[in-house]
Structure formats: structure tokens, C-alpha cells
């Protein structure tokens, strides 16, 4: 069996099966949490949070070694990363709230300073003689090497807890994302809900550090929600879809990474995310690129057909090649450019429709109905038969039948 397939079917060994399940759960939690961050338009905050974990990892390692323990204890490293991540998050909040710094600038400052400090700490640790520092670099880009059952359980439990909090807070978080003023007026504490949202992001980041790495964990928080948005117009559905996309990316990505030595886990998971995103971007039914190209083209043809028919009705020559080809393909023009019976009939109808609209817009000047005039919408789609009859009376004795 092919190694990738083997890994996907959880038969590539105990370790990679653990990793695949853990990564799937992590992806689901990140996708769900990330959706709210995306809806709140604060996706980039996750980047500051994740980079701010690095000094915490370094400090926790040094502290654990100093206390005579194993510096690579996952729970210890997670605790350390959470502390500095929270510090970074608080700084971003404080800077954008209390100073003239905008949030994006605060994010950039915190992200780079914390990351720089973390790298310095890692360099110091490299020079230390104790504590089995090998493997600490794995927290940058993620690794599955040396993953223990205990680690997988931590990731799984963390993912499930985050998911549970999302279920509990989904309504307040949706409301605050859509309309914070209304939420505040209704008595929700917007600031605390925002903090809870960022707390969730931090939890997912800390839990995912080992597997995906702090540089790329943001991808799991940002790409699945964006992907989900292509497929749905409902926020609750977007949360579920995003969780599903995140889970698939995590599961498939870690399986592929486990199938060959030296394939970093984080980047492969991110590339899996991107594959889903690229497919959605192109082929999503309503918001996808292909769908919108098709829609635009259809609309263009409709405009040319209408303009061509009106030109026929007025007896004007048509030079536009697209208009000519639309009319010929529709059977309104013979190949030699002479209108067919159908063409004359439809041209008269279009002409009559325009005249009716002229009257309608005079009568209904102040109404929303008049706004429905776009040169394309047929009269019958907007007005009732009685209203059209009233318009025709104003137009005089000539009926559409009389014109054809």
C-alpha cells in the first residue's frame, strides 16, 4: 500500500494514527474558533498571539531545566507559552485601546518583539549543556517526531474543550461580531466576549504549537473560515463547515507528513488547507470565481440582446460584433443581418416595454418600484396586470399586438 494511503487509513503505525486524530481534532477546534475571529474582522490578532508564545516556550524550558526536570515536558511548555501569549494579547488590547496606535500596528509591534525575544532565548538554550534541547525547534514549524500518547491526549482534550466553549458562547460571539452596539445595548459585555474569543484563540494556539508550529498555526485559524464563507451565507453553517475543513486539513496534512521522514507537519497541514481554499475560490457555487465569471457573462449577453432588439425596433444599424452575434444566435437576425419575424416581434415587444416603463416611472416617481427600472427587468415582473393596463391606457390606443 502507498505510504500516504496507509497513513490516511490510520494503519501506518500507532504514532502516526495518534497524530492524525489529534491534528483532526485540533483543526476542527481551530476552524470553529477562527470563524468568529474572521467574522469579527480580527483574524490577524491570532498572528500576534501565536508569535508571542515563543518566549514562553523558551522561559518554561529554562525554568524546568533549572528545577531539574525534563525541559521538553509538553504541559510545562504549553503553560509557559500561554503566559507570554496572554501578555502579548493584553499588550495589543491595551495599545489599541489606550494609545493612538491602531490595532494592526500594535499587532506588528508585539508580534515581532516577542518573536525576536523568543529566538534569542532559543539561541541561549542551544548553548546550554543540559535539558535535551533537541526538538525545541520543532515548535516553530511543528513536528510529530517523538509524539507521545500523553501529548495526543492533551491536544484532543484541549480541542474538545475549546469546541465546548464555542457551542456555549456562539450566540454572544455572533452578535458581537455582527453588531457590537446592539449587543452592548442588550446588556452583553462586549469587552468580555471579545476577550473570551481571544482566549479561545490562545487556547487553540497553545494546544496546536507542538503539531503545527507557532509560525503556521494562524493558517488553521484563518484559512478554513475564509474557505467556509465561499459555501454559505449563514454564520452558524460557516462555523460547522470551517470546523470540517479544519479537521480534514489537519487529518490529511498530518497523515501525509507522517508518511515520509523529514516532512514538517505544519507546512503540510497548511498546504492541505490551501488546497481546499483554492478549490472553493474557483468553484464555489455562488461566490466562486468561475460562478461569478459565468454570471457576469450571462448578464453581459442579456444587455447586448436587449440593446440589439431596441436598435432593431428603432431601425438603427448595429455595429457591435457581440450584439450581432447574440442576435443571430437567438434567431432574431438572419446570417445576412436582416431581422427575422421573431426578431421583429421581440424588438416590438422590447420597444413597448420601454415605453410602458417611461410611463410607470412618471406615475410611481417616489416609489421603490421606479427604482426597479434597470432597462432589463420586464414590466410583468414588477407590476400587476391591472397596473400595466392603467399604464397602457396612458400610452393611447396602440396596443403591443397592434405594433407587431
Amino acid at each position, binding site marked *: 500500500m502507498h505510504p500516504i494511503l496507509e497513513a490516511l487509513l490510520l494503519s501506518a503505525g500507532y504514532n502516526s494514527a495518534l497524530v492524525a486524530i489529534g491534528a483532526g481534532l485540533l483543526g476542527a477546534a481551530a476552524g470553529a474558533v477562527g470563524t468568529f475571529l474572521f*467574522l469579527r*474582522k480580527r483574524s490577524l490578532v491570532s498572528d500576534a498571539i501565536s508569535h508571542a508564545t515563543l518566549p514562553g516556550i523558551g522561559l518554561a524550558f529554562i525554568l524546568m531545566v533549572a528545577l531539574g526536570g525534563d525541559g521538553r515536558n509538553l504541559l510545562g511548555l504549553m503553560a509557559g507559552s500561554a503566559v507570554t501569549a496572554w501578555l502579548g494579547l493584553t499588550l495589543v488590547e491595551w495599545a489599541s485601546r489606550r494609545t493612538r496606535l491602531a490595532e494592526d500596528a500594535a499587532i506588528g509591534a508585539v508580534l515581532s518583539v516577542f518573536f525576536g525575544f523568543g529566538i534569542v532565548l532559543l539561541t541561549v538554550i542551544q548553548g546550554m549543556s543540559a535539558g535535551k534541547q533537541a526538538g525545541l525547534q520543532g515548535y516553530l514549524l511543528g513536528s510529530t517526531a517523538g509524539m507521545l500518547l500523553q501529548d495526543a491526549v492533551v491536544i484532543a482534550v484541549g480541542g474538545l474543550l475549546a469546541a465546548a466553549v464555542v*457551542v*456555549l*458562547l456562539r*450566540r*454572544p460571539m*455572533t*452578535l458581537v*461580531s*455582527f*453588531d457590537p*452596539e*446592539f449587543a*452592548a*445595548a*442588550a*446588556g452583553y459585555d462586549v469587552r468580555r466576549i471579545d476577550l473570551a474569543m481571544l482566549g479561545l484563540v490562545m487556547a487553540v494556539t497553545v494546544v496546536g504549537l507542538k503539531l503545527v508550529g507557532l509560525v503556521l498555526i494562524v493558517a488553521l485559524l484563518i484559512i478554513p473560515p475564509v474557505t467556509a*464563507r465561499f459555501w*454559505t*451565507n*449563514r*454564520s*452558524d*453553517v*460557516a462555523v460547522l463547515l470551517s470546523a470540517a475543513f479544519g479537521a480534514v486539513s489537519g487529518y490529511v496534512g498530518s497523515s501525509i507528513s507522517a508518511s515520509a521522514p523529514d516532512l514538517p507537519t505544519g507546512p503540510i497541514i497548511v498546504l492541505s488547507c490551501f488546497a481546499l481554499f483554492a478549490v472553493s475560490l474557483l468553484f464555489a457555487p455562488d461566490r466562486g470565481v468561475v460562478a461569478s465569471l459565468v454570471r457576469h457573462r450571462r448578464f453581459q449577453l442579456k444587455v447586448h440582446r436587449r440593446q440589439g432588439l431596441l436598435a432593431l425596433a428603432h431601425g438603427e444599424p448595429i455595429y457591435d460584433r457581440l450584439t450581432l452575434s447574440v442576435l443571430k444566435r437567438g434567431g432574431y437576425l438572419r446570417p445576412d443581418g436582416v431581422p427575422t419575424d421573431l426578431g421583429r416581434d421581440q424588438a416590438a415587444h422590447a420597444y413597448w416595454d420601454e415605453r410602458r416603463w417611461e410611463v410607470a416611472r412618471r406615475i410611481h416617481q*417616489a*416609489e*421603490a418600484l421606479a*427604482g426597479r427600472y434597470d432597462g432589463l427587468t420586464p414590466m410583468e415582473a414588477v407590476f400587476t396586470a391591472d397596473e400595466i393596463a392603467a399604464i397602457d391606457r396612458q400610452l393611447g390606443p396602440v396596443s403591443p399586438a397592434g405594433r407587431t
Partner: protein
Amino acid sequence: MTPDGSAAKVVEEDPGLPLAVRGMTVAYGEKPVVFSVDARFPAQSMTAIIGPNGAGKSTLLKATLGVVPSLSGSVSVYGQPIAKARHRIAYVPQRASVDWDFPARVVDVVAMGLYRELGLLGMVSRKQRATLMHCLERVNMADFAGRQIGQLSGGQQQRVFLARALAQNADLYLLDEPFAGVDAATERAIIDVLKGLKAERRTIVSVHHDLSTVTDYFDRVLLLNIRKIAEGPTATTFTAANLQATYGGRLAATQINDLGLAHAGA
């Protein structure tokens, strides 16, 4: 018109008074945009808050609700601190304050008016779903329940916001420029709903910018330009002299004359 201290004390404890604001001051930076405003909004009244751009009309509403922080001032709602009476208030923010590309259908937005009732985990019951549809019917938007909100016109968006406030089933309605940039049909639909609410013994306070409709729509006015200029029944308070005092030179004398108001000052 402003009650003295002892009178205000009595007012604040009056459970029949929907909304009383005292000494409200709000500043952005160190520039007050609302300064020491006292106002009372009696039961079953429809009050327009009127004033020029930058007069602090919206800010006064938001500070009253605690949406923006105030430097000083107290608010009582039906004789209670606002924190205890939020369930009796519905708020309609400015339509432009949200991103309408948000993934939600019309019915999802209206359902936000039920969130308090639903709690964190409650499901929307059959009865509540009927309530939502009824709220949409009141603003003539029932046919749009399943529509993505990004596809609505400005007037339709405004009606959806009003339907959400109706779903809150409140006693006091605070609206921020509900008629701004809407078509004539929407304006009629909204004013019909508001008058219906008043007939149901509810109280309405609305920031309003169109001086020509004030006398038709509202029975009370609050004239504001950072400070309160005047408040009271439209007939006696919405006068040329008070408007001149509120708008200063920003309103030409001819514009005031066009309103056809009595020239006696308040």
C-alpha cells in the same frame, strides 16, 4: 423645565417614567460632545431628538444605553438603574454601523432580538419562530425571511433592524436615525409601526434629521446641540425661536419659515 435636585430624585424612582437621563456628559478625548444633558421621556410619548450634525444626538442615545462610556450622568429606566431594566429596552442602531456582508439571513438577524430570551443554549421554538415571522410581517418583510442580508436595499435593511427590535418585545424603543437614506415606502412602513407601538402604550425615542416631518411624526421633541436647548411637546417646543437657538446660523431663516411654525418662543 429641568427639575431641581429633590424633584429629580422623585422622578428617578417613578416606575411609570420610561426613561430619565440626568447630567449626562460624554467626551471624545477632551472635547465634550454631550454636556450635562437632563431629559425625561414620558410614557407613551414619541420623542424626536433633533439637532445639527455633531450635536451629539446619537451619542446621547448610546451613552444612555452604555454603548459608549459617559463621563458623568445617571440613567433610570422605569425607575430602576438601566442594568436591571435592559429587557424592557429595544435599540435600533444606525443601519450603516454594521457590515451587511455578514453571513446571515434576514430571519437570523431578527432572531438576535430573541437571544436574551433564548439564553446560551436554548433552541428557537415553534412559537418563537412564529413570533419572528410576525415581526417581519409588521415591517412588510415576511417574503424576505430567507434572503441573505447583503442582498437587501437600504430601506429593507432598516426594516430588518426594526423587526429585530420588535422581536425584543420591549416597552421602550430607542432608534438612531431610522429614516436616514430610506425610500418613501420604507419611511411609511416604519412610521406606521412606530405609531402602532405607541398605540400599544409603548414609548419611542428617535434621533431624527428631517425637520419637515417632525410635527407629523412626533408628539415631543428634544432639541440638542451638545447642551439641551429645549424639550417638551412638539406643539409648544418645536418653534422657530428654539430651532434658531439649536441650529444657529446653520439653518437659513427661509428654511425655518418653510416649516410653517408659530413664531412664539417656547
